[in-house]
């Protein structure tokens, strides 16, 4: 991390960039938050550890409108989102100095809480320089330890790889964290009967409080005007909500990002209700791969997205019924 701070100070000092976009410590040991830094003194609050899960590429939409260059720290999976935003002309590549930061998997504090680890005072073993094998947690009830991988976010278990797709320089080492099949969960649901599927999604989606966090954090949801903000649609009425509303919201939101979603997993990370929202996006990705050939959004900044493209030989919609 010190290497990152030193480099940021250098870039600020020589005028390459006028601000740094990274993370600063939050009020708790496990909630660092995205932050801008404009001076060497401010950079003393800079942190980068296992809890820095936030994808900073979306912040570059606003930063692209500012005067001067911004140094932005992007993890390997964030660079896919950045590429996708370049493709959609939402960010200015010339306004960004991309420092690809290493990633050894990002942590989810809820996993620790599920293990019964409460009253967390400090956590060590999650720094970039650490091996990231075990976490040592100081709690009100004494010291606890747990395996790093057990506390990782779901998305890190199905990591797309630790290679940065776009960068100006890379700082820090990465460690492979993939230990699960990306579409395993989706396949499990596909194998259910319609009744079971419906019951599963009804159970998950009924938790939704329509806070719009998934939309607001999503790098693909970058429209200036969003359909869900329109009062003409019955999707903005939290007071008299019906179960239809959540289904409508999540299907349409997933559809709007289909073919553009890089599967960064931010939606599931920020959901305050713990809804596995990635299951929707990943279903579209799986279908696109099956029907129209393998496609990874954000792998480059030029290729046409699958929904803005077609071939004469595309399968008919009846394939949905036939393949069952």
């Amino acid at each position: 991390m010190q290497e990152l701070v030193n480099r940021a100070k250098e870039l600020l000092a020589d005028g390459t960039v006028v601000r740094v976009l990274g993370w600063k410590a939050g009020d708790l040991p496990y909630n660092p938050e995205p932050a801008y830094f404009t001076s060497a003194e401010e950079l003393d609050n800079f942190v980068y550890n296992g809890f820095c899960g936030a994808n900073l590429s979306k912040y570059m939409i606003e930063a692209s409108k500012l005067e001067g260059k911004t140094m932005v720290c992007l993890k390997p999976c964030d660079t896919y989102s950045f590429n996708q935003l370049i493709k959609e002309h939402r960010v200015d590549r010339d306004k960004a100095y991309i420092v690809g930061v290493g990633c050894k998997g990002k942590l989810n504090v809820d996993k620790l809480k599920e293990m019964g680890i409460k009253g967390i005072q400090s956590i060590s073993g999650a720094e970039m320089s650490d091996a990231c094998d075990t976490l040592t947690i100081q709690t009100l009830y004494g010291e606890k330890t747990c395996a790093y991988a057990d506390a990782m976010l779901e998305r890190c278990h199905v990591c797309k790889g630790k290679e940065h797709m776009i960068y100006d320089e890379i700082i820090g080492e990465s460690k492979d964290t993939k230990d699960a099949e990306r579409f395993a969960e989706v396949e499990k649901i596909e194998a259910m009967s319609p009744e079971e599927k419906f019951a599963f999604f009804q159970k998950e989606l009924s938790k939704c409080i329509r806070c719009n966090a998934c939309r607001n954090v999503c790098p693909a949801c970058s429209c200036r005007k969003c359909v869900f903000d329109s009062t003409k649609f019955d999707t903005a009425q939290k007071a008299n909500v019906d179960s239809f509303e959540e289904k409508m919201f999540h299907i349409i939101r997933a559809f709007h990002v289909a073919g553009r979603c890089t599967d960064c997993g931010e939606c599931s990370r920020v959901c305050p209700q713990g809804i596995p929202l990635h299951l929707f996006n990943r279903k579209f990705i799986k279908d696109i791969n099956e029907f129209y050939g393998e496609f990874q959004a954000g792998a480059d900044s030029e290729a046409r997205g699958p929904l803005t493209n077609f071939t004469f030989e595309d399968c008919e919609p009846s394939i949905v019924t036939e393949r069952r």
Partner: protein
Amino acid sequence: MSIEKEFRPKIVAFCCNWCSYAGADLAGSSRLAYPADVKIIRVPCSCRVNPMFILRAFQKGADGVIMCGCHPGDCHYSTGNYYARRRMTLLFSMLDYIGVENGRTRVEWVSAAEGVKFSTTMNEFVEKIHSLGENVRLEDLRCKN
């Protein structure tokens, strides 16, 4: 006291102006019968059908939604139905994924000369919806009378 009513499905058919709507017209002028449960909404092109329209129809009480357009290759706007085909494939797959019976949605390509196809398709589809019964998985209670 309620009276037991016979189930009359509500079916929404999105028909493109250039082929399927004319096909429906031909079915009518050829006196080919199709059930009155089918309510046709004319759209400029099958590509105009936003996935939101389909969900919206279900929300407002439709039991089945069918989209008809020109045959691939015959689109009045050259390529509209190719895009629509991809969109609907993905949407239907998603509806199937969340547990909506996949017989409730259908895409059929009907040209202006295929009055017979229009009539048989609609008859088949209405029968299918009859067998599936009322749509309860995508209904919005706020829209019920």
